[in-house]
């Protein structure tokens, strides 16, 4: 008989049917990089089963903060059967241990340093953020550049990465009325999250700075922001502009 979890132990995650061809696996209900690491670890386990051909019905896996969307190849499996198989997998003690041991990514190649100019000319809400937090602009910059951020998920728009966690004093709500146009590269905050707008788009987060360039981020990556001066930003932006003009 295969080993089973004791009855007192809650399963690590619930598997629900999300659509005729999709399941949602939901872990503990909080924003926590340890929980997110479990989501990504399960994603990796399922990806292996997909690639090895063991579970050919796995079509696509989309992780978020505490949940994982699993798209099914409906030609090969019905959702209740897939739900059952993933539940069985999650009941295996070895897998539970493996997921519980999952750490937020610490590989050096997934730590990105991104230069950000924190200047009112480029960040419409910087002064507002400072006064709302009762801090100087310099203190706001010191706080925002302090953490190593974790990429919890990508969503909202292509390559839009949700980073956390913003230090407590800077946890400010979204704008009551979203802006019609947020410039590409804007660095913004909303509660415990921060993000870079990858392209000019509408947006409701408060704008704290502006990045010149940034890598394509993946869930589980780590990010550090470094403050640069307005002149440094302008030089870097001009260099990128002339490089793209030559293309």
């Amino acid at each position, binding site marked *: 008989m295969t080993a089973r979890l004791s009855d007192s132990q809650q399963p690590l995650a619930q598997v*629900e*049917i*999300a*659509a*005729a*061809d*999709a399941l*949602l696996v*939901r872990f503990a*209900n*909080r*924003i926590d990089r340890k929980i997110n690491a479990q989501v990504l670890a399960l994603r990796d386990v399922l990806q292996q089963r997909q690639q090895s051909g063991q579970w050919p019905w796995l*079509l*696509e*896996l*989309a*992780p*978020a*903060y*505490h*949940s*994982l*969307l699993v*798209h099914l*190849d*409906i*030609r090969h499996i*019905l*959702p*209740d059967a897939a739900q059952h198989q993933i539940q069985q997998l999650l009941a295996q003690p070895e897998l539970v241990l493996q997921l519980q041991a999952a750490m937020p990514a610490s590989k050096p190649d997934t730590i990105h340093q991104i230069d950000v100019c924190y200047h009112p000319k480029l960040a419409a809400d910087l002064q507002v953020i400072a006064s709302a937090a009762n801090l100087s602009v310099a203190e706001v910059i010191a706080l925002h550049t302090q953490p190593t951020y974790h990429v919890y*998920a*990508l*969503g*909202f*728009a*292509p*390559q*839009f990465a*949700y980073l956390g966690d913003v230090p407590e004093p800077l946890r400010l709500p979204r704008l009551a009325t979203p802006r019609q146009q947020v410039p590409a590269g804007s660095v913004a905050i909303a509660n415990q999250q921060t993000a870079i707008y990858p*392209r000019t*788009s509408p947006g409701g987060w408060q704008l704290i700075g502006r990045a010149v360039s940034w890598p*394509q981020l*993946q*869930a589980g990556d780590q990010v550090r922001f470094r403050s640069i001066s307005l002149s440094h930003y302008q030089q870097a932006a001009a260099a990128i502009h002339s490089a793209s003009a030559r293309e």
Partner: protein
Amino acid sequence: MSLRILQSGPLTTLQDFGRFGYLHQGISVGGPLDEQAFLWANRLLNNHFNAAQLEITLGGFRAEFTAATAWVVTGAELPMSLNGQPVPAQQVQLAAAGDVLTVAPGGVGLRAYLAVAGGLLATPLYGSVATVVRDGLGGLQQQGQAVQSGDQIAYATVPGYRTLLGRRPGRSVAPQLPTAATGARDKPVILEVIASGQYAQFEPEQQQLFTDQLYQVTPAQDRMGVRLAAAEPLQWPHAQIISEPLPVGAVQIPPNGQPIVMLKDRQTLGGYPKLATLTWRAQNTLAQLPAATEIQFRWVSATAAARHLQQVYQFFQVQR
């Protein structure tokens, strides 16, 4: 050889079956809102299921075929003519070089699909030409632009295209909508749904209310979603939820209690609670409903919905 767009209408977009495999990067699937109409168009022309077509919203469209081909329009029953002569929808037609197709406003339904033999040709981005305006992806220039007057959309002349003339579906694929003519105006359109998301966390009376009451389709709708309006707002009794992946067809309940049904251009993550997900059939139906149409939700099992989808994908040879 191309389709020369003389008049693009309010919203005409290039669509293949969708941009699959990039949800983890926040990239929406796009693709035809009425999949049934789209798949029939490709099937009638012996095209690959994924061959690109035009999704024509509300007509107002005129284009010239610069080379002979077979073509078909499926989906909404919009008034159509070729060189001024009325032609039926849902049935393969032939065009000679220089023929001009007009798809006028009016008729039944919102979205018509124009397909040509062999499919429309454009350069894919992330594996697809599907236009998602809000993502800035797909379309003729790969930057998410809708079709514009003056655009030229290439196609190849397929050998033997003439033999396709007159092909039509075994049964009507035209949207069945309540109209004065069908005498069904008093009855709501039924949309089948699967319980999903935060369903179990809504109070039992709210779960009951969800399927008991009628909703009106509102004008606040686009390729991202459709806002509905009901007499009684649905109440979510808990705090905000953590953003989670948002399936196509999900019924979200925002703070004002009026549901929003998410369509293919939706954002990939959403922070509103969800009660249900529309079935494939219901998604196709909703894609054709004009504002003020009355709808009602009806539960079906996920297994029943999945079995139907299985049959559909087998029939149309859909492979993701």
